[in-house]
């Protein structure tokens, strides 16, 4: 039996933050989940009301509240538009930690987070093994997109078209780096993140190529771990803390001006979520985390704002490329012009805006696993906008969004490629 009283007491910590919600309902206008389900419990206002009720023991069904709380992309659209300035993401993540740690994580997540993500070596070994065996279970789905689908009925995968594990993860192609600053006078640490490392190493290679071209020194430590977002957003603060410390230690050894990533989610996590949950760490670790967070920057932003990459005049008859704004890049970090500049810096491409470019693609990390039907509806809307732009390539600054868009496009056999802006820019460099 769960002790509701205790759970309520823990949630009351969030009272001061939750009370600022004036129940105006304006979040309905921007919430991608609400747009598909039209259910009040799926939008911020409803979730906050439920959490308040749980905190004040006005609702008995804690599992029901947990389910609603987890039905959220953590895209931050509501927070960016909330007139009252409610710190939604902070509330939701803290509430997930409290509620999920109290009611327990689903078994599958426990295995993934506690057993795998927090042990990078084991994780890497498992992935390497997985790569060898994936042919048994999956088959190529779309050559252009490089996607696969399941050969056998699998409840985990369903009819998804996914990106297969890379033959050689980035980490194996480039185990470590420590090059001095070149003519730019700048040196960066590079944090590839799991998806780039294991599924899209070509993005990591493009990043390294671009940095090298501009004379930027690179520090790539041998042992780095996942940024921890899957764990913390599922409420597993223990695994999250382990990952943060692992990373903090890995990067503490290098000297660099910025820590760059090519994953919007990683950047937002390191910059905004790491420092929020470090109260329990020893002071030394806190300093390291704070320093890293301050230095972290998205690769598009780094290249345009620091290195000075500029757009080129559009060619006649270039390839049409459009851009999807990852929530974590635009809504959390305010980066949206720079990736577009980067796309326009390759003179072989014509940039076109799509409608609703800053609408969430519906991936939301673990949301995609738990609520695939809703995730897919949101993704299909994105697909519609991509197709309507008549682009041959859709670029985006987050590998998780790339996976989602690949799935949506591949399932329909659309002839649209999915790329990272830095890949497109890298192609322009000799």
């Amino acid at each position: 039996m769960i002790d509701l009283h205790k759970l309520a007491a823990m949630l009351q910590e969030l009272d001061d933050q939750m009370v600022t919600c004036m129940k105006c309902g304006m979040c309905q206008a921007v919430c991608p989940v609400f747009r598909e389900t039209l259910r009040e419990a799926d939008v911020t206002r409803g979730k906050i009301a439920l959490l308040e009720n749980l905190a004040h023991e006005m609702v008995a069904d804690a599992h029901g509240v947990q389910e609603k709380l987890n039905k959220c992309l953590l895209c931050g659209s509501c927070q960016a538009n909330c007139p009252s300035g409610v710190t939604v993401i902070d509330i939701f993540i803290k509430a997930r930690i409290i509620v999920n740690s109290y009611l327990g994580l689903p078994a599958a997540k426990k295995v993934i987070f506690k057993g795998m993500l927090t042990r990078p070596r084991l994780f890497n070994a498992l992935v390497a093994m997985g790569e060898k065996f994936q042919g048994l279970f999956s088959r190529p789905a779309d050559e252009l997109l490089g996607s696969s689908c399941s050969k056998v009925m699998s409840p985990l995968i369903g009819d998804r078209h996914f990106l297969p594990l890379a033959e050689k993860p980035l980490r194996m192609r480039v185990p470590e780096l420590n090059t001095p600053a070149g003519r730019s006078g700048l040196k960066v640490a590079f944090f590839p993140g799991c998806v780039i490392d294991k599924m899209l190493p070509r993005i990591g290679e493009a990043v390294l190529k671009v940095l090298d071209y501009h004379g930027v020194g690179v520090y790539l430590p041998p042992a780095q771990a996942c940024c921890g977002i899957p764990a913390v957003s599922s409420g597993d603060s223990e695994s999250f803390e382990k990952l943060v410390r692992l990373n903090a230690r890995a990067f503490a050894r290098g000297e660099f001006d910025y820590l760059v990533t090519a994953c919007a989610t990683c950047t937002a996590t390191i910059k905004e979520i790491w420092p929020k949950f470090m109260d329990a760490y020893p002071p030394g670790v806190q300093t390291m985390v704070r320093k890293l967070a301050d230095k972290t920057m998205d690769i598009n932003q780094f290249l345009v704002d620091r290195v000075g990459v500029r757009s080129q005049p559009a060619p006649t008859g270039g390839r049409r490329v459009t851009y999807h704004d990852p929530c974590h890049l635009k809504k959390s970090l305010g980066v949206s012009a720079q990736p577009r500049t980067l796309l326009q810096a390759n003179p072989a491409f014509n940039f076109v805006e799509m409608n609703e470019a800053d609408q969430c693609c519906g991936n939301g990390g673990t949301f995609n696993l738990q609520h695939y039907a809703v995730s897919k509806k949101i993704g299909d809307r994105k697909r519609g906008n991509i197709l309507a732009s008549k682009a041959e390539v859709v670029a985006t600054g987050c590998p998780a969004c790339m996976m989602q868009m690949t799935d949506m496009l591949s399932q329909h056999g659309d002839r649209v490629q999915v790329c990272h802006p830095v890949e497109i820019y890298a192609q322009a460099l000799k």
Partner: protein
Amino acid sequence: MFSNALIKEFKAIVGKQNVLQKEADRQAYAYDAAVLDPVVPAMAVCPTTSEELGKVVRLCNENGIPLTPRGSGTNLSGGTIPEKKGIVLLTNALNKIIEINAQDLYAVIQPGVVTAQFAAEVARHGLFYPPDPGSMAVSTLGGNVAENAGGLRGLKYGVTKDYVMGVDFFDVTGELVKSGSRTVKCVTGLNLSALQVASEGILGVFNEIVLKLVPPPAANKAMMAVFDDIDKASETVAAIIAAHIVPCTLEILDNSTIKYVEDYTRAGMPVTAQAILLIEVDGHPAQVAEEAEKVVSICKTAGAVDVQAARDEAERNKLWEARRAALPALARARPTTVLEDATVPRSQIPAMIRAINEIAKKHRLEVGTFGHAGDGNLHPTILCDKRDTREFERVEQAVDEIFDVALSLKGTLSGEHGIGLAKAKWLEKETSAATIAYARALKTAVDPKGILNPGKIIGG
């Protein structure tokens, strides 16, 4: 709460997935945007077709179940707070725009269409739907009609009621009642459509609404006038109207609102000003240019210390940003924001604002006032923390006194936010016992069991 057989009937009508019974689902329909105590309904039901809508209403009536229609739940008067043993009828899946007729200038819509989406669709047809409540990004047209919502353009273009040509609604027995027409003129029978406007769901459940459209203005010009004296600002409002200029928008922000807006936006607002007026004229380009010039000179003559006219779209947006920031800026100051809706004849605005500030001072409360000066509709916004029960009692006291003053100045309890639960007890003060008796008789005649949104407007 309901028998299994009855629940089965609801499910048979709208489908299993559209009957929400779990506690966590029901709790999300216990409140709206008013600062009132929530009431958890027994069930929420979400019809997706007109036919289902009518059947749900009939089933409720047959079984004596109180029914509260709900759009987006953004009303500020408790209009969608349900009954404990009742159901909430969700209208937001009934969101089809059935017809936009560009030739005859009307549109037919279902009640769950979101106002801003409708306005955007209409604009794509080269037409204009003027009512623009601050909540339009989420509010539904059904909710707008039921509340007779107004907006920033009320002065020149009127409010929702001025655009309702017809409402087809289900009576409590689930019969479809048709009213109004698609013609500009129509005097056939009683004006039942007009009766539905501002009825807050107590007289019927809207099924289809016919709305009037107008051609869009070709040009517009926005201006900001700064005053060191709020009386001068109000005199300016009267002077503009007296000069036979009807701006589409004429807004006032008082000193505390300006300060909070500046704190929040750092846009360089004149924080020492006692009031600013934001004015926009629209129409034919030549007329706009002439009127704008006149407005500027009227403002100066009436004592504005500074008048700025937007030179382009970017500057115009900047001016309106200040207005749009009013509520967010105030809302961020303290945990709870009590947004009121006192409305007085234009000439009484200075008296009303003075009274509001005195009342706030007396009760040691912080208040910012902004609103639609052009139509006398003010939004005194009290900043507080509802968890502090002592403070909140003072807030309630202050609100009562604000309404007293509004009525004594020949004003009204609500310019646009409706009566709902929040102001039902006040109704007799503004109207009369006979008015309420007439309304009650009407309600009893069309809804003898008191099924439709009980407790709202005329009380229980």
